[in-house]
Every structure is written in C-alpha cells, then in structure tokens.
C-alpha cells in the first residue's frame, strides 16, 4: 500500500469524527480549568472512598454485632411485698452480708439448685484490704458460701484487674478467700474472653470474661469509692471490670459507657461493700488516711439505688454523678433509694 492510499483511507473518515479528532489535538483553551477539574474529581473520589470505607466499617460493626451473642437477662422476678434494699451495719462484714441477704428473702430467692453463678468483686488494684481499693475479701467469701449453700453447681469469682492480675488477686486477699469458700477463681488471661454484642449508645461490641456468657446468674459485689473521673464508683462502674482491651477508650465518655455496660449485664443481685470506703484519691488509693471504716453492707437488685446510697456515704449527691442520672434515665433503677421498700439492720 502506497502513502497515497493511506491518505486516501483518511479521506474516508466521516467529517464528524475528524472534527472530534481535531478538537482532541487542538491546544486546550483553558488548561488550568481542566487541571482543577481533574484534581477536584480525584479529591471527590478519594473522599468518597474514605466515606464509603467508614460507612462499610460501621455497617460491618453493626452487622457483626448482630451475629454475636448477647448476655442473658439474669434478673429474677419481683416478689410482691418483698424487701427491695437491705442495709446491714456492724463490725463483722460476713455477718452483715448474711443479715442483709436474709432480709432480702435469702440467697435461695436469687440462686436455684444446679445453677452456675459468677460473682464479680472489684479486684482491680494491687492493694491490701485495709487500703479499700478492692472489695473486702470476707464479703466475697461470704457471698460464695451463701451461693454454694443455695445449691449452685459452679461458682466463678473473676474480674479484669487494672494493675497486674496476679498481684491484685493475691494482694487483695480475694483469690485465697474465694477459693477457700469453694469458688473457682478466673484470672483475666487472654483465653478468658468472648466477644459479645453490647448494643450500647457508645459501645457496640466488647470482649467479656467467659463466665459472664456462660453463667445462669450474676452477682455484683462492688466496693464504694471516690473516683477521680466519675466522682464515685460502686455497682454500675464495677462492670468496667468485665471488659478486656484498652481502658482509655472507655474513659472518653465515662458516664455513658458505664450505663452502656450496666444495661448489657442485668445482674441477679448486687451486694455492695462499704465495710471500708475510700474517700479520696480513688480509684487507686494507697494511704490509709483516705480510708473510712463504715462497717456497712447494702444489698438490692437496683444498682442505681445502691450507687445513690453509696454516693451518700461519700458525702456526694446522686444528682451530681452523671452515671447515676443517666442510669436512671436509661431505666436501670431509681436514685431515690428511700422510695424502695428498705430494711435497715443495726449493729
């Protein structure tokens, strides 16, 4: 084929395409505008992909939480006319637990023969019982004994410690006391967690200690303390100790995350330890100068009411504690603990 033929072939191209071709080859009349458009398009695509990625991440989180187990509701049915809160005062912590439980109708009202029960004290700190940062070991041991007497087939005692678990479980005296009373003590090692659906306002999912997934009944055994960030700690805040992972995330909105966790757990019963309370420098404490001997145990199924009672022991108003206010709004209980049918037992 000659050059002439090639040109001849070009002549056969329709005029419209030639115009298009000439447009492409012609110098761009506004190169800056095209460059801006190109950058803009790429930026929009990048933003879109980030947005899509975040949306997918959130949707995946939601979708995944649907497939995860939720914790059971461990509450028992209310009994008409029964005492709703019992407060026992006296020098013997174990006797206070027994007396308060008796006033509530006995442990048999809450735990049935053959059930598996998890007991959750505060074992967060490398501190002695006298330093009042953890639940009193005598209180924990007495709860274990009462649960065993009610016929439980399995009793776990566990917590996610803030300080090294080995030190906390030993120094607090709880491991020794709970084992002696017949419980299985579960330390929070990496194999002890199961992922569950939290479905809270802030927390979607969480890794919780396995006894909370497997148990038929849950008993909360917190200690009353001043707390630097939340103002106070007691029943509701004690559920921080079921979760693994970094604590800093939980503290970004402490009051709401407390309520999220409390709404997930729904315990059978709460035995609040105010044998010794930490009035300052909580939650860690250390100095006995910050500790006040109160010789008090309060028992109820209403965690908000117990926290309101505990706030009073610390000299605080429940209205000033965000997690109590939010907990009441979320329907977890009442801050007006005196409105409950209460029995107070002196020493």
């Amino acid at each position, binding site marked *: 084929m000659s050059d002439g033929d090639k040109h001849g072939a070009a002549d056969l191209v329709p005029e419209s395409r030639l115009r298009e071709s000439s447009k492409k080859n012609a110098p761009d009349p506004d190169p800056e505008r095209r460059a801006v458009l190109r950058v803009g398009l790429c930026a929009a695509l990048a933003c879109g992909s980030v947005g899509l990625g*975040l949306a997918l991440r959130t949707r995946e989180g939601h979708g995944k939480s649907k497939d995860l187990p939720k914790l059971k509701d461990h509450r028992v049915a209310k009994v008409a006319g029964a005492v709703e809160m019992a407060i026992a005062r006296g020098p013997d912590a174990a006797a206070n637990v027994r007396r308060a439980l008796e006033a509530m109708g006995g442990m048999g009202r809450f735990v049935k023969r053959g059930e598996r029960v998890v007991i959750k004290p505060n074992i967060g700190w490398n501190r002695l019982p*006298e330093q009042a940062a953890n639940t009193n070991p005598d209180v924990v041991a007495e709860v274990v004994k009462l649960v065993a007497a009610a016929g439980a087939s399995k009793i776990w005692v566990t917590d996610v410690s803030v300080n090294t678990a080995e030190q906390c479980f030993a120094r607090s005296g709880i491991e020794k006391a709970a084992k002696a009373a017949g419980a299985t003590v579960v330390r929070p090692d990496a194999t002890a967690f199961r992922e569950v659906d939290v479905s809270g306002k802030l927390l979607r999912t969480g890794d919780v200690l396995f006894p909370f997934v497997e148990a038929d009944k849950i008993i909360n055994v917190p200690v009353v303390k001043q707390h630097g960030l939340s103002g106070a700690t007691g029943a509701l805040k004690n559920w921080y100790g079921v979760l693994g992972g970094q604590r800093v995330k939980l503290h970004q909105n402490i009051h709401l995350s407390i309520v999220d966790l409390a709404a997930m757990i729904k315990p059978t019963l709460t035995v609040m330890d105010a044998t010794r309370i930490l009035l300052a420098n909580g939650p860690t404490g250390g*100095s006995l100068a910050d500790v006040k001997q109160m010789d008090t145990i309060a028992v109820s199924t209403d965690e908000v009411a117990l926290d309101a009672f505990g706030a009073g022991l610390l000299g605080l108003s429940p209205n000033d504690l965000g997690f109590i206010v939010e907990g009441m709004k979320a329907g977890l209980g009442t801050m007006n603990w005196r409105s409950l049918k209460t029995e107070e037992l002196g020493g």
Partner: protein
Amino acid sequence: MRIVVFAVLALIPPTLIGSLLWQGRKAPPTEKVVAARPSGQEADAALRALFDAQFPGAKVKDKVALYDEKGLFDYIDGAAPIFIERHFRKLGAAELSTPEGSDLVCDVYDMATLENAQSIFDKEKSPSAKPAEGFPDAISGPMSFVFHHSRYYTKLTAFDAKAEAVLPAVARTLKEKMK
C-alpha cells in the same frame, strides 16, 4: 484513562488508612513499656535512672514500667485525667522489696515542670495526711509517703509495717537523684 489510573492511585492511601483503622480496633492492649518519643529520650532515661539507685533497705524487684498518657489509664484508670490535665509526661513504676520480703510500690510521675508537680501534689494531698518530719513538700499517711521535688511527683505505697518503715529512706534516696 489517566484519570482512572489517578483515581485508583488516589484510592490506595484511604484504603490503607481504613484497613489500619479496622485492624486497630482489634489491636491488643498497649504495651505497658512505652517506646520513648525522640524528644523525650533524655527525660525517659532520667526517669529510669531514678530506679537504679541503691535504696537503703529495699531493692527493685522487676523491670521499671514506663507509662505515657494513654497507658496511664491502664495503670491508674480514672485517676489519669487529673494528671493529664496537669501536663503529665510519663510515669515510672516499680515494685521494691525489703530483704525480709515485704513489698512496696514506687510510682514516680514526671510532670514536666516543678509547677505541675506541685499542682498534682496539692490536688491529691489528703486533708488528714501529716507533713513528713524533716522532709519539705512531703506527706506521710499510714502505709504511704508522698512528695514532690523538681519536676517529679512521687508516691510510695507499702503493704506492711516493715515496708512502711523504709519509705522515708527510699524517698530520700530518690530525691537526691532528682535534678
């Protein structure tokens, strides 16, 4: 065609960021020994060096753990914000033991400046705590000894009477090493 290639290339960084964010959600808890930021290397070394002292009547049991702002929540939980508000830099923590096997915990907070250290000391001072005899800017309560010096705020906590007895001497040794 070039736009498509450009768009694909532009998608790579956000995809990587998204992937890292997703993996971060599953990341294990932060290491308790936090890597030093280059600007704070000297300060970290100085903090660690405090624990190299020969303490009268007590010896460091294990390694010294350093905690930064994030890690502080894993050590003192909800007490962390009052330190962070006061420009806390890093915490050095170690357990010491006496020859008889009594334990005490030594927490030294590097608060970056003398003023910050003074501020946290004032904030945490228990109304019922007594000033330590012959030791300015220090209080001693049963089982504890707390003082501030230079940019450091130090809390010593004992677990029995034997450990409590060595707290002032340990505090004095630490203070001598603090510049």
